[in-house]
């Protein structure tokens, strides 16, 4: 198929141009664009070296490429050319970013951006025709799936509530119900706390004590800075630490007053992916990723891989579908997807979140997977994690 690099096409600016294109041209040529921030603090050398568990360990492009290669031959046989590009934005002008997305004719976006910038972009996509399919691959904020949800928006990374529910299920299944909760002093920590408390309630855990912690060696602040003093409460089963930064949580296990497990942002941590899980073909994927990137596959890498995989799977199944039909196919939850987690995954029609199992991991190992055995749901066991249909705050389905 012809490419449209020359002549009149370039002169047409704006999304209306896409409407004028003959459909057949677009059916054969697809552009996936990974959008990240040029100076993303998450990828600064020092941050990457700290390697707090659950944080990204590098940019998501490699994982996206691996997913594209998986079905490349199938798609080529069906007459499709799918290309993957990378864009690092300065994070300033949304209008400039939109112009760039438009220039590159991207129909599928993988957003590796902070929640606020993702929200701003989605606002625009709500107002223009032929907006792209957008995958959020980096933000776990439940608000993006709830009050700020959008019909074009799909989320492959688990929401915070899914992670919290996974942990709460794990504790409830063991009857480790009495919990000390330690919350950081960042504004994001308070948001974390609210979500995790909803899970605590959902699964019947009991809060024995809740305390704010600070990162400080100052003796005048020892009540809030000393892990032993923070966890001295008798009669608890576990310590739940909610720390959006990760530094305090990382150092908490084995530093508690009593011999109790730590869960949450440190100790036993809920993750979308962990390389030591060795069933359901997972090691093969981790191995392919490691070969290309020379690092273990992290949750955010899996979310990036899964986003491309979702799009290419839909296209492989419906090679003649339009962009809107592909979005509908994914968003309706009727396409089952192979995430190498043992069961078929799909998107929740009510908020665009990918339903999936969560690994409960510590250090180098995976203790198990949630949903845990024994948890029940009338229709779909994976919907015991995160906002189920009746709980969803999403109004734009």
């Amino acid at each position: 198929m012809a490419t449209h690099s020359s002549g009149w096409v370039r002169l047409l600016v704006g999304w209306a141009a896409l409407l004028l294109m003959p459909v057949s041209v677009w059916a054969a040529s697809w552009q996936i664009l990974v959008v990240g921030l040029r100076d993303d603090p998450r990828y600064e050398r020092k941050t990457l070296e700290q390697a707090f568990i659950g944080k990204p360990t590098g940019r998501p492009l490699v994982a996206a490429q691996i997913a594209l290669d998986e079905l490349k031959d199938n798609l080529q046989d069906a007459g499709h050319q799918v290309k993957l590009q990378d864009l690092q934005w300065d994070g300033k002008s949304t209008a400039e970013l939109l112009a760039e997305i438009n220039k590159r004719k991207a129909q599928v976006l993988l957003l590796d951006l902070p929640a606020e910038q993702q929200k701003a972009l989605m606002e625009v996509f709500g107002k223009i025709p032929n907006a792209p399919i957008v995958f959020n691959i980096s933000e776990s904020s439940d608000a993006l799936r709830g009050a700020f949800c959008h019909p074009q928006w799909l989320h492959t990374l688990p929401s915070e509530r899914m992670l919290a529910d996974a942990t709460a299920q794990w504790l409830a299944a063991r009857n480790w119900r009495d919990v000390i909760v330690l919350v950081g002093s960042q504004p994001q920590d308070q948001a974390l706390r609210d979500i995790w408390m909803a899970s605590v309630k959902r699964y019947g855990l009991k809060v024995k004590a809740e305390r704010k912690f600070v990162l400080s060696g100052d003796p005048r602040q020892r009540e809030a800075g000393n892990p032993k003093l923070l966890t001295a409460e008798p009669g608890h089963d576990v310590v739940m630490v909610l720390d959006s930064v990760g530094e305090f949580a990382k150092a908490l296990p084995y530093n508690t007053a009593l011999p109790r497990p730590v869960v949450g942002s440190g100790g036993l941590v809920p993750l979308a992916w962990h390389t030591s899980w060795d069933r359901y073909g997972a090691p093969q994927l981790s191995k392919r990723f490691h070969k290309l990137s020379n690092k273990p596959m992290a949750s955010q890498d899996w979310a990036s891989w899964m986003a491309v995989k979702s799009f290419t799977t839909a296209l492989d199944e419906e090679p003649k579908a339009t962009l809107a039909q592909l979005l509908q196919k994914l968003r309706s939850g009727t396409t089952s997807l192979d995430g190498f987690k043992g069961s078929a995954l799909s998107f929740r029609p009510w908020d665009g979140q990918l339903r999936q199992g969560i690994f409960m991991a510590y250090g180098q190992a995976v203790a198990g997977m949630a949903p845990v055995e024994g948890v029940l749901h009338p229709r779909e066991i994976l919907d015991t994690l995160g906002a189920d249909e009746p709980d969803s705050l999403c109004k734009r389905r």
Partner: protein
Amino acid sequence: MRTLTTGLLLLVIATCVGADVFVSSEKDNAIMVLQNDGTFIKNIATCKRPRHMAWTNSGKQIMVACADSDQIGVVDIASGKQVDTLPTGESPDMFALSPDGKTAYVSIEEGSQMMAYDIASKKPVFSVKTGLEPEGVLATPDGKRVYVASEVTNLVHVVDVATRKQLGLIKVGKRPRRFALTPDGGELWVSNELGSSVSIINTASRSVKKTLVFEIAGMRKNDISPVGMLITPDGKTAWVALGRANHVAEVDVATHTVRKVILTGKRSWGLGLNGDGSRLYVANGLSDDLTIVDVASGKAVKTVPAGRVPHSVLTN
């Protein structure tokens, strides 16, 4: 001398008569040898992470693919030892032998290919590129075709042995794993682990004629994940292990309908049927045991320990 002869005789009896069931145990690096009632006899040490097995040398030896040592091991039944190895590409998964027993067709996960090896010279003869993560391999009894399933691309590759080329591709269900061929060669069955189904391929037209979706009352579709499969020599019955549904299904081949499902251990996958077809052995990958099913009554009669992650079953 006489004691020695008697001893040998006893040994022969113990190994040939008693030893009926062989189970590859992935994390024990061993093949477990059991009596037909499930009584443990011994372990035979093999290469690392033994998975798929096949009889060779007129049933005197077992070939076993070892994913972590990039080899196929050859295990001698009489001596109870691994006596030889065939080097393969990285991470061999499943394999099939040509009808003359001279060639091994092996799915090689790393590099996404099917490699054909000449067993006598231990040399690769040819290879065919497949989709990612090739899994099940089946060689037809007429020696003409080899089928390879690719888990990631949901395709079955049809390989022509004479020209050593891919003849065609057949799109099947999600995450295709294993094959079974009807005795007349007309139907090729492919288990789709994430499709909760079996794609039944018409081998002549190379197209899917029916997709048999498994359903169990009270069980979620997502938990039904078929892997292991076999069709009885009379061509009337297919057995399909339903993975995390913890059941095996008995399927009527003529009508493509499920006759019954039988409860097993957790994540049932590897299957083996004894010589007269009266007993089915089911390897359960998550509960590390082996369920013995009495075929006539359709009941699991016994479940016995089977190492760590039992994978495949062979029977005498």
